[in-house]
């Protein structure tokens, strides 16, 4: 959380300067304007709160989604009984809250209550400091990475009205918490810290099964980070920028990277030449994302039939829950990145000329609403990827450790390198 805030604040200072350079004020209520840098910092804090809130909401509900989807895949019912709190209870003798079962949508509450109320047992032999630090480290990187993911466009929102009092609010970068130019590098740099949580958990538990799990996972995550990083290079060769917002903007005008539809405004037929390379990038990125998030078929660090629980064998209660939820947070971040990199982020599949208001929102409350619509579009695409993750998990068996490493180093790495070469050559030919 702290790092998240500090990175956001760093972004805020940059933004504050740009806003000041524009000469305009950001917030003006009844003639009193606030110092722009402070206002922008406050705005960013609001954005952080909203984004983290939505993120945690999705974390808890992707657990429900996982349980419901796996049940559907396996001919079971899944959790379908938990309603919302107070259902069936007469409130203040006035009205009775209806007994909605709501498809088990109340499930996150009892789930987390159960985990909180469990005894928090710390084995005597562990290294207490790292043992406590590890779950926090497992959860944090995912929360930090979301701050560079653009969930809406960057057209500033301008809200102004004069009655009952004069009010002017400019939101300079509504679509992303920190619009930094090294976007994707930052995402990779932070998400690779996630391995520390697992390695530290495995090592500090001072127990054999977690130790094996920790070793496996450090090898696995480092290996797949390489192919994951290499797989996105062709994209940025094509775009020429590392900024994720620019990437989404490019996809809005040129067509999505995995589907360059020809009805976009700046579509050129030469793009189709690059399409196979980008598709290959997508496949490598998708598979590496499975490995990075420790999901089946790559869930070796915690493969429960071999290593009992893997790195979190010795954890209980909320410490375990942090690993558990951290895994889903990583899943969500991976989905976010995939949507941003390959699926056009918040953009629609329709020609931009049909809905110009969507790509260039007007000022006022309408602009805010359209920004919200963009965020919802983004979330729907993200949910689709979450479903793919769940679907694959409940269909495929698990790789063996050495097979996994072989695929990573002997197949994906050379293919990703060749892909970069091919893209570069094609780009040279086209331009």
């Amino acid at each position, binding site marked *: 959380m702290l790092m998240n805030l500090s990175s956001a604040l760093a972004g805020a200072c940059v933004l504050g300067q740009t806003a000041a350079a524009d000469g305009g004020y950001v917030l003006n209520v009844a003639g009193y304007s606030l110092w722009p840098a402070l206002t922008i910092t406050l705005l960013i804090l609001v954005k952080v709160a909203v984004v983290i809130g939505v993120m945690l909401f999705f974390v808890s509900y992707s657990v429900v989604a996982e349980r419901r989807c796996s049940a559907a895949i*396996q001919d079971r019912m899944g959790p379908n009984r938990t309603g919302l709190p107070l259902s069936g209870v007469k409130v203040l003798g006035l009205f009775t809250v209806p007994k909605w079962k709501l498809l088990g949508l109340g499930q996150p509450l009892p789930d987390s209550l159960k985990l909180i109320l469990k005894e928090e047992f710390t084995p005597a032999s562990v290294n207490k400091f790292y043992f406590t630090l590890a779950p926090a480290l497992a959860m944090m990187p995912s929360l930090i990475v979301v701050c560079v993911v653009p969930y809406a466009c960057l057209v500033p929102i301008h809200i102004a009205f004069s009655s009952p009092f004069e009010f002017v609010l400019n939101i300079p970068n509504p679509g992303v918490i920190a619009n930094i130019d090294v976007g994707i590098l930052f995402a990779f740099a932070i998400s690779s810290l996630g391995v520390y949580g697992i390695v530290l958990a495995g090592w500090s538990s001072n127990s054999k099964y977690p130790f094996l799990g920790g070793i496996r996972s450090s090898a696995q995550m480092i290996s797949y980070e390489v192919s994951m990083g290499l797989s996105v290079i062709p994209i940025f060769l094509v775009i020429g920028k590392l900024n994720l917002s620019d990437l989404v903007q490019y996809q809005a005008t040129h067509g999505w990277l995995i589907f360059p539809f020809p009805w976009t405004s700046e579509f050129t037929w030469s793009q189709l030449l690059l399409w196979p390379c980008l598709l290959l990038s997508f496949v490598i990125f998708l598979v590496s994302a499975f490995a990075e998030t420790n999901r*089946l078929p790559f869930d070796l660090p915690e493969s429960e039939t*071999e290593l009992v629980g893997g790195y979190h064998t010795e954890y209980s209660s909320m410490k375990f829950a942090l690993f558990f939820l951290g895994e889903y947070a990583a899943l969500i971040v991976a989905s976010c990145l995939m949507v941003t990199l390959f699926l056009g982020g918040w953009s629609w599949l329709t020609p931009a000329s049909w809905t110009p208001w969507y790509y260039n929102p007007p000022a006022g409350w309408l602009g805010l609403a359209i920004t919200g619509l963009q965020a919802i579009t983004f979330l729907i695409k993200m949910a689709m990827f979450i479903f793919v993750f769940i679907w694959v998990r409940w269909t495929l068996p698990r790789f063996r*450790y050495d097979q996994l490493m072989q695929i990573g180093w002997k197949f994906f790495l050379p293919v990703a390198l060749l892909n970069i070469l091919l893209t570069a050559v094609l780009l040279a030919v086209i331009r």
Partner: protein
Amino acid sequence: MSATTTEFQTPDALARAQQGVESAPEFAGEKLIINMGPSHPSTHGVLRIIVEMDGEIVTKATPDIGYLHRGDEKIAENMTYNQFVPYTDRLDYLAPLANNVAYACAVEKLMGWQLPPRGQAIRVICCELARVSSHLLGLGAMSLDLGAMTVFLYIMTEREKIHNLIERLTGARFTTSYTRIGGMTRDLPPGWIEEAQAFVKQFWPKIDEVDNLLTRNKIFIDRNKNIGVITAETAINFGLSGPNLRGSGVNYDVRKVNPYLGYEKYQFDVPVGSVGDCYDRYLVRLEELRQSSRILEQALGNVPSGPIHVEDKNYLPAKAGVLTKMEELIHHFMLVTEGIDAPAGEVYFGAENPKGELGFYINSHGGGVPYRLKIRAPSFVNLSILPKMLPGHMVSDIAAILGSLDFVMGECDR
């Protein structure tokens, strides 16, 4: 005072250190000893394997069994033959009907009895239902160990249907205790045959479903091909039986080699593997599901009418006279309290059970109680190969190998 001591004199400290390094190669690299079980997700019960590993490679594996030992063989010496039937449920508790049948057949062999055709047909149906149920769980547990949980749950749905059938037939879903010496507790309930036929009919596509999910799955093949190879010779030397033996390419099925209960009348093939790896054992089990379904179709379509019990005037009183005639009543009373008066002698009966050849060796000194009852538990014999098989594999392969051996600790520990 004949003890002698041999002393080695080493000239200097350096040479002593050198000698120490040479004589103790384990100092070259530290090995990790981990304890798999008795409570471990992939050991299917209470098997404990002490695994010595060099990195992820197993260098030594020592199975430690006996956590489920109940002394069944000794218990058998203290009760009449019929009283032991419920104990056979708890041997291979995934196929209790087959154990009941095997035990009853063994005692009947001692008595020199032959069941009437209807009784034999019902027992064949029981055996094959149990085989289907057990193989299903074997496949399911194997796929679960390899991470494919969905297959396991599909399979559980099918087992549920079998358990429903078994419940209708015997009154219990799991601990059936269906057979008695010389017959069964009850005849087939009305309409049961049609239900069973309906089950078999809908079961064929379900086998294909499992087949489609696993057989050509690249990950599944990679995890199983050339893993846990048992050559035909090794398999025979270790006394393996059942699908594990046939997976190694040995065409040995007690139902074919030494038919009992009229198995010679049914048409079925014995699937045989070629390499003897986990994948072959999986394929053999999958094909045996189909063959068992074939047998079930034949048996269910042609259940003879007539009695299901042996009628032997020398041992059994006329049922009709038990409640009206003194002699028959006394005879019946003695039969219940003292057990059947079995002849003295030794007998061994081996049945082709889902896990392998389940054998009962009975040493009788006459009377209603065996002098010695030895159970040849296929799981016990099959597991004896672990120390030979596991070294050289990776720790992840242990899950695949244990899954493919398909053992039950209830039977192994007895």
